[in-house]
Every structure is written in structure tokens, then in C-alpha cells.
């Protein structure tokens, strides 16, 4: 064992049809690059579900975070069948409900409200990271 702490895998739905999928993807980048870069890392959903060994090793046996755009929750479903011990969910459509003034638009280039929504979803995910850390006694 190297002794280095496992980084929490983060899987985003990245749905291409709607702004909420794009916000989920952007939230994953905000979390892993800006908010908790030392403690998290992105794992590609496609690789994971198609059984890529490295991706599966990343998620196996520990908690993981799914950030989904819509109710179909593809990222959570993908993590659920890929060996993650505990799937913690962030649902962008729920985050939007608590930020009713936001009107996210765009897929490749989210508008300002889309980026705010992504930031709010990333903040929720960061709280989950902190809770996992606290439970592990590393807070």
C-alpha cells in the first residue's frame, strides 16, 4: 500500500441534449479543479460503464459522487453497477428548484445562469466531500 489517501471519484452525466447535463459536467470540473482538487477526481462515465478496468478500480469499494442533470440519473446508475460502495448523489434539477431565478441555457457554452447553477451544484458536492472526509476522520 502506498498510504496515499483515495481521491473520491466524481462522475457527471454530461448529457448532450439539455443545459442541465452541461451544468452537471461543469459542476464536476468546478469541484475537481477549483473546490476540492486534492480530494476528488473525475472518472469518465462512458469508460466506467463499458467496463474499463482502470475506471472500475477508481470507484471500487469506496464512496463516489454522481452529478446528474435529469431525473434519469444515468451517472448514479452507472456508478451503482460499477462497484462503488456508496453513491452520493447531486441532482442538478433539484439544485435548480432551490435556485428558481436561474434560467440556464446553452450546452457547449453555458450562459451566466448555467454557470451559477453549476457552481451551486458543485458547492453541494463539496459538502458531500467534506462529510465523507469527516466520517473518515480526516476533516
Amino acid at each position: 500500500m502506498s498510504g496515499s489517501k483515495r481521491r473520491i471519484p466524481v462522475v457527471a452525466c454530461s448529457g448532450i441534449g439539455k443545459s442541465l447535463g452541461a451544468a452537471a459536467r461543469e459542476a464536476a470540473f468546478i469541484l475537481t479543479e477549483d473546490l476540492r482538487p486534492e480530494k476528488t477526481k473525475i472518472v469518465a462515465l462512458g469508460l466506467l460503464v463499458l467496463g474499463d478496468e482502470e475506471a472500475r478500480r477508481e470507484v471500487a469499494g469506496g464512496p463516489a459522487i454522481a452529478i446528474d442533470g435529469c431525473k434519469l440519473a444515468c451517472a448514479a446508475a452507472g456508478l451503482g453497477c460499477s462497484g462503488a460502495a456508496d453513491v452520493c448523489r447531486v441532482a442538478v434539477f433539484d439544485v435548480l428548484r432551490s435556485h428558481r431565478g436561474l434560467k440556464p441555457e446553452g450546452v457547449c457554452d453555458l450562459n451566466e445562469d448555467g454557470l451559477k447553477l453549476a457552481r451551486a451544484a458543485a458547492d453541494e458536492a463539496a459538502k458531500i466531500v467534506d462529510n465523507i472526509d469527516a466520517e473518515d476522520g480526516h476533516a
Partner: protein
Amino acid sequence: MPDLPKKKVGLISCSGEELPEGTVTRRAVRKVLETLCPDDTVTLCLPLVLAGGEGERTFARHYPTIAVDGCEKRCAALATEKYSAKPAASIVVTEIAKKCGCGAIGTARRLNEAGLRLADEVAGKIAEETDRLLKKKPGRAVQEADRGKP
């Protein structure tokens, strides 16, 4: 004559979150859908195909599809073949990038200028394949888009 549904091509991008090439696939597919071939294409959501979305899987079983992958792992092509049918065409961004010699393209979060140009190049390839599959005049989509007639 019955009013048959128009034949369209389904575009499936890998959207890989770990590599900038995954972002290129997204941008290229959206450009084709929104600008180059809006009447001839639909996008299929790869996560939904993987998660068991019957609508996406059925479409890909009965209509031609183009898989657009960021890297040689070809998740979009493999998933389409596994759950629906073999894609009618398969495009891999790293292969096009090698031919273009475009160098560094930015990050998965933000493409740089070279990455945006590569996405345009890939979009052109997707439009060409769309024209070929629908037996339309080659290059028609790009010419119409250039004339401002999507």
C-alpha cells in the same frame, strides 16, 4: 402515400470528461446539430444509451448513427454496437488531430483556439458523413452553413 418519418442520422458523442478530445466531440456534434445539418440529425445521449434508455437504443437500432469518440477506446462506438447496432460511421478525434497536427488543444474544461478549430474540423467530417449516409450532395451542409442557410 403514408406520411413516413424523415430519415435522420443519430449522432453519439463520447463526451469523455477526462480528456479535452471528449469536449471536442461534444462541441463538434452540437455544431452539426445546430448549424450544419439541423434538419438531418438528432443527438443521442450516450449516458442514456448506457443506462438503458429504450428510446435512444431503439433509434440507433433502426436509423443510421455516427459515433464520435475522443480517443481510441471508442466508448460511443462500442456502446452503440453493444446495445443497438453497429454505427454507420465512426470518427475518432485523436486520429483527426494527428492528421491536422494541431498540437495542444486545451483542457477538458476549456478548449483553446486550436481545440475550437479542431472541433470545427471534426464537425465538418461529421457533416460529410451525414451527407454520405443520406445520399446528399457532398459538402452541401458546410456550403449552406457558410451561406447562412442552415
